[in-house]
């Protein structure tokens, strides 16, 4: 086990900007996260949440600013398997002819040889990961035959098998059953204890209060960032969502 220095930053994003062919998607955004921290990423559709993720994984290039992952470049973070991305269910082709086992094995590809032939350690990592998300009965099930919650757990298992120290989760709670929601929240506590850093986007304000130490409110740029208890205020939320009152957003049950 590597020793974790809890004082060093895992993620450092400084004044980052992303634009797509001249259209600004994100500007002057900052974020600093340490090991063991869980941060919620909250904003409207099109506020730049996915863009933020894409910038951290290197899927899009930033036009300005600086990103450091464990003090190094995004490129070397990719090489070191540091970041795992868990897509939202809508972001993947559920009809792709591929089994749970094969998806989770993809978490190991980055550390395999060029033919991606699994070693014994890879097989073990995949087995363990699938067990942790409770899908051992579905090893060879095509992902098209899974429920939304099971599919979400499959991609979580991929991230676990990758042994990444940073997890980026796009809407981890959308479209999942109660059982999956409970399992994910248990995993979050385990991840936190293992010193992993988690950044998750969500529409659900209750989940932010429940899981997130920190919250990052964005609307093309950072509206507010800090401890959830301090920053997650009705005023800030209203600003983030373009003037819509939090009562409306929270719904009647809160």
């Amino acid at each position, binding site marked *: 086990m590597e020793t974790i220095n809890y004082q060093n930053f895992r993620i450092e994003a400084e004044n980052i900007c992303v634009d797509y062919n001249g259209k600004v998607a994100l500007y002057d955004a900052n974020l600093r996260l340490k090991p063991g921290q869980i941060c919620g990423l909250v904003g409207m559709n099109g506020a730049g949440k996915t863009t933020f993720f894409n910038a951290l994984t290197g899927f899009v290039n930033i036009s300005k600013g600086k990103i450091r992952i464990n003090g190094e470049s995004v490129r070397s973070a990719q090489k070191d*398997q540091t970041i*795992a991305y868990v897509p939202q269910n809508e972001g993947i082709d559920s009809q792709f*002819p591929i*089994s749970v086992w094969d998806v989770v094995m993809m*978490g190991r*590809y*980055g550390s395999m040889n060029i033919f*991606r032939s699994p070693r014994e350690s890879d097989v073990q990592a995949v087995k363990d990961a699938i067990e942790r998300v409770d899908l051992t009965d579905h090893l060879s099930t095509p992902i098209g*035959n899974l429920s939304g919650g099971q599919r979400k757990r499959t991609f979580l298992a991929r991230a676990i098998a*990758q042994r990444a120290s940073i997890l980026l989760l796009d809407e981890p709670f959308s479209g999942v059953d109660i059982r999956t929601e409970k399992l994910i929240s248990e995993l979050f506590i385990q991840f936190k204890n293992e010193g992993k850093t988690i950044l998750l986007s969500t529409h659900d304000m209750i989940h932010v209060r429940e899981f997130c130490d920190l919250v990052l409110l964005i609307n093309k740029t950072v509206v507010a960032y800090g401890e959830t208890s301090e920053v997650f205020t009705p005023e800030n939320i209203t600003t983030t969502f373009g003037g819509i009152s939090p009562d409306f957003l929270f719904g009647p049950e809160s």
Partner: protein
Amino acid sequence: MELCSFLTLDSFITDPLTHGFMRKALLMSSLVAAVCGFLSSYLTLKGWALMGDAVSHSVMPGVVVAYALGLPFSLGAFIFGVGSVALIGFIKQKSRVKEDTVIGLVFTGFFALGVVLVSKIKSNIDLHSILFGSPLGISLSDVKQTIFISLLVVILLSIFRKDLMLYCFDPRHAKTVGINVFFLHYLLLTCLSLAAVVGLQSVGIILVVAMLITPGATAYLLTDKFDSMTVISVLSAIISSLIGIYVSFWFDLETGGSIVLAQTFIFLFAFLFAPRYGIFKLKKLFAGYK
């Protein structure tokens, strides 16, 4: 049909084999079918059918120019195939025109250029064999080229089989774990251009896109496993080629068209009777009898 009445199945199969050109056609078409079928799984899953159509049509001027200059036609075809894709990407990025429009616009432009060039360069280019293929009249140098290109594509696809599957499935994850997505994108495009080049000998430029998408689509209806999909795709492509060539021999039909029609019929069969995804779901029908 009268021809057939005194034929046994045995002579239906063996008689054509006594002709050298038929043996060559059957072998070469099977090889080409296997290559296109292999690639087909990736193209159908990636949603690149239109891209396949574009590349295969765009190679036309390349073939004509190469013939005129006495170069291997595969070289010209390859340059124009990849060039068309680069141009599509460039126009898409620099204008507000939607992607499918750009694709349609670019490949028809290239194709028209090819047609015009053929009419201007009065050499021994046979327009008909470029447009519709001529597996029965394939020359020795073409055989060598086809074998070389086919092996190259099969080797490339075999080495990067899993990476390409990941690229089609989840490019974002590929990028996140440090896999070179840019390389895989152009690898797939290169294979597509090369497969179009060998495919056009069998069925011609106009129909080669069928070789690149129909076997994959058929296999997609029949399995939920990627590896089986590749195997089924290759097999159905080879079988279609053999059926097409035999049928065209006995009934004196256009060979390229016959091969593609055979593929289409196999697809229709899968569409109607595939165990899980067919309209009539064979499994359920059989279950009813038990």
